[in-house]
């Protein structure tokens, strides 16, 4: 479903070009969950951003089903993100001025795909049912990340991209959140690509792949 081939990306820094990704190949099958591990600066977040269409690769292709992400326009990429992807960030990136319920529903709403029953089920399974009227700042980190996961899944995406989703959480909470996420991803039949530096969390997923120095090991 997701096929990344010969992907290259480098950044300009004062001392010249810094090569972040070198000929990266990657595949995620439908319904599969894949953990992408690596050291800090190994390029795993960059890879995730490229797949999400948030940045442009120097070379190589990213194929999401039939869509060639890197050759799409800004507006088309936005539509792909809206309709087919769910993003979970380390910093949660919730909208502080919206209540939990609205944060949860938000992406589904802008995609015009709001499904109340699914929404209720998500809130329920994420343990957010009693918190729907609160604002993000009134939630703990784990609760906030659960809201973010719910938002990513609310529009039933094909692929969830999670970038260090537990980076701001303690271990116990992290395990719980990742478990919840993988369960829900399984339940909704979508794929998951999670970036993490924790081998322990990676082990919770179907498959793992390791990135060092910009290459898949």
């Amino acid at each position, binding site marked *: 479903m997701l096929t990344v081939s010969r992907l290259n990306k480098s950044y300009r820094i004062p001392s010249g070009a810094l090569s972040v990704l070198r000929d990266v190949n990657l595949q995620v099958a439908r319904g599969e969950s894949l953990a992408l591990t690596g050291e800090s600066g190994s390029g795993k977040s960059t890879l995730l*951003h490229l797949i999400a269409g948030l940045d442009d690769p120097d070379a190589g292709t990213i194929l999401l089903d039939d869509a060639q992400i890197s050759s799409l326009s800004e507006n088309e990429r936005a539509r792909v993100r809206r309709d087919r992807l769910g*993003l979970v960030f380390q910093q949660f990136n919730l909208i*502080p001025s919206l209540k939990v319920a609205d944060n949860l529903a938000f992406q589904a709403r*802008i995609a015009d795909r709001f499904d109340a029953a699914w929404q209720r089920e998500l809130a329920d399974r994420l343990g957010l049912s009693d918190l729907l009227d609160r604002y993000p700042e009134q939630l703990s980190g784990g609760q906030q990340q659960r809201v973010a996961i719910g*938002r990513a899944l609310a529009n039933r995406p094909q692929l969830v991209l999670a970038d260090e989703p537990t980076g701001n959480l303690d271990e116990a909470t992290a395990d719980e959140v990742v478990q919840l996420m993988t369960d829900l991803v399984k339940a909704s039949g979508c794929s998951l690509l999670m970036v993490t530096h924790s081998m322990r969390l990676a082990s919770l997923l179907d498959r793992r792949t390791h990135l060092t120095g910009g290459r898949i090991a």
Partner: protein
Amino acid sequence: MTGGAWTLRVLFSHWTRHPMQLATLLIGLMSATALLSGVQAINTQARLSYDRAAASFGGGATAMLVPAHATTVPQSLFSDLRRAGWLVSPVVEGRVRIDGRQIRLIGIEPISLPRGAGPAPSIDQAALQKFLAAEGQTLIAPETAREIAGTEGARLETDAGEPLPPLHLASELSPNLLVMDIAWAQRALRMPDRISRFLLDSAAAGERTPLADVAGDSLDLVDAGAQTDLQRLTASFHLNLTAFGLLSFLVGLFLVHSAIGLAFEQRLPMLRTLRACGVSPRGLLAALVVELVLLALVAGLGGVVSGFFLASALLPDVAASLRGLYGASVSGELGLAPQWWLAGLGMSIAGALLAAAHALVKVFRLPLLASAQPFAWQDAQRRWLRWQAVLACAAFVVAAVCLTLGTSLVAAFAVLGGILLGAALLLPPLLNLLLRAGEGMSRRPVAMWAWADSRQQLSGLSLALMALLLALAVNVGVGTMVGSFERTFNRWLDGRLSSEIYLVAKDPAQAAAIEADLRSRPDVDAVLPSARAETKLSGEQVEVLGLADHATYREFWPLLEFSPDVWDRVRDGTAILISEQLARRLNLHIGDRLRIPSSGEWIATVGGIYADYGNPKGQIIVNVDQLLHRFDNAERTRFGVRIAPAKVAALMAELQARFALGGTSLADQATVKAESRRIFSRTFAITAALNAFTLAVAGTALFTSLLTLGQARLPQLAPLWAIGLTRRRIAGLELLKTMLLALLTALLALPLGIIVAWCLIEVVNVKAFGWRLPLTIFPAQLGQLLIVAMIAALFATLLPTIKLARIKPITLLKIFADER
């Protein structure tokens, strides 16, 4: 709700969480819109009145034939023109005095009146018949009728003793105007067989003989849509208003810009999340524009409503000064067309979009991956300051070019605008330099921090400070101009009004009786007859004032330039004096020879130029006997009386009793002076009012900027708290820093204000009114304004500072947590 609406809802959710920011934005837009639309309402109302007054019976919409060299032409031209195929309708026009009050009188010939030339009053048929009937009719606006205590059917008489046809109230008529059949008007105005102008019905024209073959060069064709006298005279007044309205609008936009800028800055993470969740850049931009337009609509609605009330409050003053200055009658009631409301809303929307343009472009180009930390502010600020300085120089260049090359009033305002804009743009770089100097001089760490932090704060406060600078500078400028004007005007008035008593007789017979009586009294030092007439110089209507040959004038008359023996030559009729503004307009100098259209041929030299402040019309002064001799319908009815001041009251009482003089036909010097001052003080009343509003808006800008900045600046302050400064101390430092910035700004505003005053006096006034004043600086006034500005700044700073002093430690702690 569709996706787009949801995006909008997300955007709006920010405002519900930050009501203060929303208030700032709305207040800024509202005040900007209110001031500008208020001024526009006043201008529109005034123009409407001019159109009704001047353009009724010709002017605006109707083409006209006007006398080329004199004020009137013989009536025989009427039939000559008609028989040559020119479909003209005669109009006779002038002023009559009724109970001492000057009223414009127009005589029309309704049968030949072109369609659409009149004010189209819907007078009932019976009245129409009466208008033309032998008894006739005097049409009058109800408010004017009330003012002269006339009722329907009343038969008035002019002060000169001419009867008028019975009054008929016509609400469509403009104020201070009488309309009657030409037969009556010629009699009332004592202009038998004379025509003031012809209205031309071009719609029904067939073949016609060339105008020159019929009328020689005695008539000029004025096309429909040409400016009327009143419009020309008052143009500068309205331009003045518009300019200050625009200034207020600009200051308001500064406020809006800072509020919008801050809101966008705070919402950047939200906007990024929206983009990451799949809102397209185009969609996001559209949502932001819609949000802005909705806010602008709300603010605009509030703005136009406030503008309406503002205009209603100011209008009576404006109407009074227009009447005093230009004799223009402006109705005191606002009647506003729907276009005005729409224009107000449009202004609000355009202003909001303009103020947000920068932020919107930024959002459109928003990089999706934020660098977690804002990049070095030092570098960004340096670039920004350099850019501001370059723009400032450009503005100064524009001002300089307009100053040297421009001739119009618009160019004069461009000079003013260029200087103000340049100075405002230059303010942040200048403050930066000053703060850097302060930083270099300080040794203690907290002081160094304070200086450096002030510099960093500069970018956030600069817009509010710029607004403050503009408001203060314009206040200083206008204050200095008004002060200079008052001082000069009072001195001038003393020279000009040198007789102790002024009187106007009903007719020459009464005048002769009064004069004989006065001359027989031993206590009267001198009786100085004067007279008035009208003529035309280079197509411009000019007043002719006739003065007696007397030491009173020789000694006191405020001559600016003169040739030797000027008064002797004026007495002989070989020289005349001309007013400063007329000299400027017609480019006349001492020694120039002039042909003065009068009953006979009269060629005289310009012997002197005198100040005639506040008179929009050109004026010339001749000897009174020359005037009476050379102008047929001039009358010897006006006198100035020289008498010991102690005897003024007694003589006036006696004159009142013996000759039934009263009202405006008899006045002592003090009354006339007071009346003149009252009229002139109004000239700038509106300017002053607008200034006060502008200063208030600038104060609000400062206040709200500080309030919003306070929140954003907590990360900078938290470390200080952490290293052991008390919250009170931090708050004190903040207060000190802001006051320092405000003080520096105010100090810079003073010289700028003097420059503005110079610009107003030497450039704008000269072009607008035709006279120049000496510039006087009033240090006390400046000091006062400085104190007011500092108090305003203190009030603006106080609340945010108190908030800071009372901030909960937990909030500061949280900053460290969030900052990670």
